[in-house]
């Protein structure tokens, strides 16, 4: 049976892993390769590396650290940040990344999703969606890596997700911005209808703070995985204990 995935996310800034609160105030939490290796050894099912300022600084991810990660870890990983073209994606995939994730560039040029899927296969193409709730409605935001440049994209989350799927994405990471970094639990109210309707895997992001939050998102929504950053970086939760807890709660996870 297919297992629910636990996905530590490493936000990368200048070759270091950082963590901000509500996408602001970044603090350094460690070296990329050291942390990647640690999570891999502890039973992470997959890793995501976000070069958080690549898009807002108009540059692509530096592929040198991608190769270093590929050399040392034997689980899948996804790289995000500033990928705007087939060439950008090819460089990163050639360095050993399994997937590339696009966010702001997909909003500017939705055709990019289609082109990437046709060239590399649907399974390589992840689309990140930063969604913000205002008065009960969900809106897509872009350039969220930089507080000064963050702005509404002018589209509603549900409509955008439908388009992303229609254009051939292989997976969507839905980051619920209201919950991000505050550890009050995943936004199951938003994620449940999205995952219910989606024909591709949906990954929950934003809000994990306790073991119970992971249980809740897997029990109350049909997401395929749950992504979290600060709870792992700050050792608030321990990956092997999280998986043990979920297994005891009858949630299908890969044993560590």
């Amino acid at each position, binding site marked *: 049976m*297919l297992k629910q995935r636990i996905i530590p996310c490493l936000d990368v800034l200048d070759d270091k892993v950082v963590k901000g609160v509500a996408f602001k105030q970044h603090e350094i939490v460690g070296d990329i390769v050291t942390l990647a290796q640690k999570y891999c050894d502890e039973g992470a099912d997959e890793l995501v590396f976000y070069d958080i300022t690549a898009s807002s600084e108009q540059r692509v991810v530096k592929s040198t650290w991608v190769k270093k990660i*590929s050399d040392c870890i034997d*689980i899948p990983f996804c790289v995000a940040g500033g990928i705007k073209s087939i060439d950008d994606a090819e460089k990163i*995939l*050639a*360095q050993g990344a*399994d997937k590339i994730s696009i966010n702001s560039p997909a909003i500017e040029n939705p055709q990019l999703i289609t082109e990437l899927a046709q060239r590399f296969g649907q399974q390589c193409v992840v689309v990140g969606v930063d969604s913000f709730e205002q008065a009960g409605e969900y809106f897509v935001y872009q350039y969220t890596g930089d507080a000064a440049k963050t702005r509404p994209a002018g589209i509603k989350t549900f409509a955008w997700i439908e388009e992303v799927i229609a254009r051939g994405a292989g997976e969507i990471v839905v980051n619920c911005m209201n919950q991000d970094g505050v550890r009050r639990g995943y936004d199951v109210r938003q994620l449940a209808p999205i995952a219910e309707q989606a024909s*591709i*895997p949906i990954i929950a992001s934003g809000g994990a703070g306790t073991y119970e939050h992971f249980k809740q998102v897997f029990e109350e929504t049909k997401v395929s995985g749950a992504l979290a950053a600060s709870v792992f970086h700050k050792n608030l939760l321990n990956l092997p204990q999280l998986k043990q807890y979920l297994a005891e709660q009858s949630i299908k996870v890969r044993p560590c």
Partner: protein
Amino acid sequence: MPYVAIIESGGSNFMSIQVALTRLGIASNITSDVECIQQASHVILPGVGMAQYAMQQLCEKNLVDIIKNLRQPVLGICLGLQLLCRYSEEGNVAMLNIIPLDVKKIKNASIVPHMGWNNMETLQQDPLLSGINAADDFYFVHSFAADTNADYTLGTCQYGNPFSAILRKDNFYGVQFHPEKSGKVGATLLKNFITISGDRL
């Protein structure tokens, strides 16, 4: 000493396979050179991407007959497994036809691609699978899958309908999952593959 030729077939996971072999201390070369492929002790046929594109690459490089006539152990990974089959629904394309099975879109699953860690429903005994149990999870990511068949299927996985996760015909093996991305159990499978010698098949 084993020496692995990783066939450059137009996908993009060569690097991951090569580093996985390097971690195991096994020398390899990413190549489309006929002589290099024929002289290797083991051959890996990788593949990520579209079936049609990968077959086109093999045709353009004149590798179709070369691969079909290999006598050493060959391991197709992911799309590589599908390339060993007869036909793929993905682009309606004829494959290498080494294993006479068809590759079809995953059916009866509400979410496609099949992406993540999954285990085997059934697992046969084979030197490739020494020390591996049906409960072990491997990393899968695919939207198309090969039918099951009593003669060729070594491992069945269930996602929607059951499909062939591990195939074998003579010296040709195929795995639908990514051993190079499947942690310790994936490393065990790659190690097993390398210890299979052509003479025993």
